[in-house]
């Protein structure tokens, strides 16, 4: 009931957005602001040639790879910073430095130093994301309960049980936060990386369309990709979060 209600409001809100867009497009009447049917036609054309699916899959693969690397390294680093004061003092300035380094600088340097190849692209995206994950997970590690750690020690849980039943559940909300903000950041940066140095993917297609001033195709790709990211959020992240939180009152 509540879910249906939320869905209804979302549909209404999006409907108003599309209507406004349509009205403005009709008033302006320019090739640079196509109306919704034109964008849908561009989407169908791109889909029929198979280019849309191919580019979306390539981009998604890059998002998945760099997201996984960033979450893995960022979490490990963040937990280390949260648990070891020495590590925090030593590495914190680096984290702040990388946190504030513009994404573009990292991308250009990665391409210059490692060549215009796939590994450089994925590495550049991951490096952009790692500091965010590390900062979030550091908060989580600092807040770990000492009471529960003592309990686990007295009852001889051992390393694996302690990690699985005591530590990771406490970090779950921080993983979820890092994953959500991470997904949003990673897929935006992946497009930039593709635009600058890859011969395929959504970013590359946007670049080609930009040179032709083909705004309809640009919007078609943005629409398709936006829907996929929304689907990941609704179908993957939110159900996992609900499952991880079912013990809460």
């Amino acid at each position: 009931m509540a879910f249906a209600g939320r869905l209804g409001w979302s549909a209404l809100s999006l409907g108003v957005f599309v209507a406004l867009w349509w009205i403005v497009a009709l008033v302006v009447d320019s090739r640079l602001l196509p109306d919704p049917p034109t964008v849908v036609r561009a989407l169908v054309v791109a889909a029929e040639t198979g280019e849309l699916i191919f580019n979306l899959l390539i981009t998604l693969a890059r998002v998945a790879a760099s997201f996984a690397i960033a979450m893995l390294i960022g979490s490990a680093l963040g937990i280390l910073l949260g648990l070891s004061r020495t590590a925090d003092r030593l590495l914190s300035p680096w984290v702040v430095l990388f946190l504030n380094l513009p994404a573009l600088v990292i991308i250009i340097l990665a391409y210059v130093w490692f060549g215009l190849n796939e590994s450089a692209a994925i590495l550049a995206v991951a490096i952009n994301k790692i500091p965010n994950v590390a900062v979030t997970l550091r908060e989580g590690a600092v807040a770990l309960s000492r009471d529960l750690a003592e309990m686990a020690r007295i009852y001889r849980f051992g390393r694996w049980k302690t990690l699985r039943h005591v530590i990771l559940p406490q970090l779950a909300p921080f993983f979820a936060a890092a994953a959500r903000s991470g997904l949003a950041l990673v897929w935006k940066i992946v497009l930039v990386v593709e635009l600058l140095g890859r011969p395929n993917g959504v970013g590359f297609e946007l670049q080609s369309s930009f040179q032709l001033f083909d705004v309809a195709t640009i919007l078609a790709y943005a629409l398709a990709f936006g829907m996929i990211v929304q689907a990941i959020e609704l179908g993957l992240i939110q159900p996992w979060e609900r499952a991880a939180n079912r013990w809460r009152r």
Partner: protein
Amino acid sequence: MTAVSIEIRAKTFPAAGGAPARPLYADFKLDVADRSFTALLGPSGLGKTTLLNLIAGVDRDFEGRVSFSREQPRIGYAFQSPRLLPWRTVLENVTLPLPKTAGTLTRARGLLTEMGLGDAADVYPERLSLGMQRRVALARAFAVEPDLLLMDEPFVSLDEANADRLRDLLAELIARRPTTVVFVTHDSREAVRLADRLVVLAGPPVRIEQDVAVTLTPEQRAMPGEIDRFRQTALGLTRGAVA
């Protein structure tokens, strides 16, 4: 089934937030007999919890030694707060410290049923009342079949009726499976009701002010009048005294 010998040459509470370091223990010695029930009495903030943590081995920052009559005794610890894992069910909380063997699950379920928690086995702890959470913590401490049971005011902040039920339950469990118990409390009625030895602490630094054997029979322990009479004669506390 363990005797414990505690010798603390020095234990200081580290300086924190501008307050200077203060000595908690200096040349303190306490021997606890095998299968005895020792109640440690004394005002709050004296360092009774610290003593339990030294025995349990989670606080190693002291000079001295804690030795047991057997190697690596299994320890059950009922903390001041229940310290359950909120993201694991009641049953999982009880079975996690246990080795994974075929009988574990059945035994844990049996213990929970005995303690009146049979219906709560698959519930998450935060959905239970504090009294029930304490019972789960007690079940966890007993499930490991401890050689040494440490209890830190396990019935504090419960209403009297609930606390009394839990005290009866504890006495019953110990009668069935005798073990060495060190029980911290500031409630001398509770101590007389349960323990066979009262150690009254004062300080700082902590010293043993009184060390009394409780000679009441199980029947006498069930009678509030007898408990008060014993407190009066053995501890010099009057009937109306709160401690």
